[in-house]
């Protein structure tokens, strides 16, 4: 039997992590408790984030959006500030798991699982998000792309807690796009996903392109070559096809029970075709 503890402050939580044997941080539990059931994890004690003051907050400053690790996914995707400034993330969370999973699961949990198929990760990469880790020595920050080190692996040190993710608000007029390709519509794990941010200029050429793919490598894949290729070009079918070829070279997919590497490579490029649009300054609606 493992005890379940409910610290009410971050300090208390850090203290518990330091003092207990084999602690597991329990956020939404939607991944952790499945792993426990499968025998992949056997925590000596659960330290819940449920009742830590401020651990579920979503904050907006003039320039930034801050999402605390314990914020439930459903609340994030419905939050006006996220809808306005982080639509790509809201779009991704809207297709994560199921309504129940989104009520339970947290952003921190999704990041900490560090799955290449984690639906929140491509948007966070595309938004150039940073994470803030709390430890006995205080806070440290790093880009989410540095924090994620491999499948299931993060830079979190023992005794630390992932406290928040934050990102700078994209410039007005930025298009947000997320698409997940899964084996079914809901309750699905992504076979390939794409998060895209780009800003079309009045003449239709794009600046500020930011792309991130899920499930096509050990971690989220970005492709500076593809982004550079698209810069200052209109997103015509021909241009996007060219970008798709570059994307297919950039990804490093594997074959598994859900999809073949070939499928993933193909689709990673194909998904760019959806960006073909006359939309100027408008967010694309999901397909």
């Amino acid at each position: 039997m493992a005890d379940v503890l409910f610290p009410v402050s971050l300090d208390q939580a850090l203290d518990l992590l330091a003092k207990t044997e084999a602690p597991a941080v329990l956020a939404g539990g939607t991944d952790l408790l499945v792993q426990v059931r499968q025998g992949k994890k056997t925590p000596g004690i659960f330290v819940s984030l449920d009742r830590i003051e401020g651990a579920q907050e979503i904050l907006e400053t003039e320039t930034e959006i801050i999402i605390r690790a314990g914020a439930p996914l459903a609340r994030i995707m419905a939050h006006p500030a996220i809808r306005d400034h982080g639509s790509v993330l809201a779009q991704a969370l809207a297709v994560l798991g199921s309504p129940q999973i989104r009520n339970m699961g947290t952003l921190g949990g999704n990041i900490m699982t560090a799955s290449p198929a984690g639906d929140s990760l491509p948007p966070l990469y595309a938004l150039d998000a940073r994470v803030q880790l709390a430890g006995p020595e205080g806070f440290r920050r790093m880009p989410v792309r540095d924090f994620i080190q491999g499948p299931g692996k993060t830079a979190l040190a023992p005794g630390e807690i992932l406290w928040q993710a934050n990102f700078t608000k994209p410039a007005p007029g930025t298009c947000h796009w997320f698409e997940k390709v899964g084996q079914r519509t809901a309750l699905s794990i992504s076979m390939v996903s794409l998060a895209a941010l780009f800003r079309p200029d009045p003449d239709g050429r794009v600046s500020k392109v930011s792309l991130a793919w899920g499930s096509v490598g050990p971690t989220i894949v970005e492709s500076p070559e593809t982004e550079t290729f698209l810069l200052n070009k209109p997103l015509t079918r021909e241009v996007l096809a060219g970008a798709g070829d570059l994307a297919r070279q950039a990804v490093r997919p594997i074959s598994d029970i859900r999809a073949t590497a070939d499928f993933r490579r193909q689709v990673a490029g194909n998904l760019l075709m959806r960006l073909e649009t006359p939309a100027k300054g408008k967010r694309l609606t999901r397909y």
Partner: protein
Amino acid sequence: MKLEFTLNSAKVTVETAPDRRLIDLLREDLGLTGTKEGCGTGECGACTIRVQGETKLACLMLAAQVQGCDVVTIEGLDPAGHHPVQEAFTGSGAVQCGFCTPGMIMSLSTYLAAHPDPAPEKIREAVSGNLCRCTGYQKIVDAGLAAARALKEAHRG
């Protein structure tokens, strides 16, 4: 541990292991077998309950997590079975084997409370975390629409 929470509108105090799965506490210790287990991994939605007004999966919760919370299971939605969603499930023929039914009803009743005028597609989304192997979902969507109409009428009346 001593666990105190509100279950179906009544205060409950039970002695339990803190890491006992909530679904086991409900079904085995408290005898509320209306909450079903179809997979144990959060994929089927048969164990959907309401915690603090939101739908959650009892198979992926530990007992200790509901300390002080308000929990509603299918048995507490309307013990007589007259909640508009329950009546619509009967009337629209949305019940077959009935094993997914409690979870479906918990999802739909929670959704409709916040979204009184749903399109059929939204009802499909509302139950997208609840798998059903019998119905093909058609009559569940019909029931959702019928329940929404009934709820609206009740509200007006």
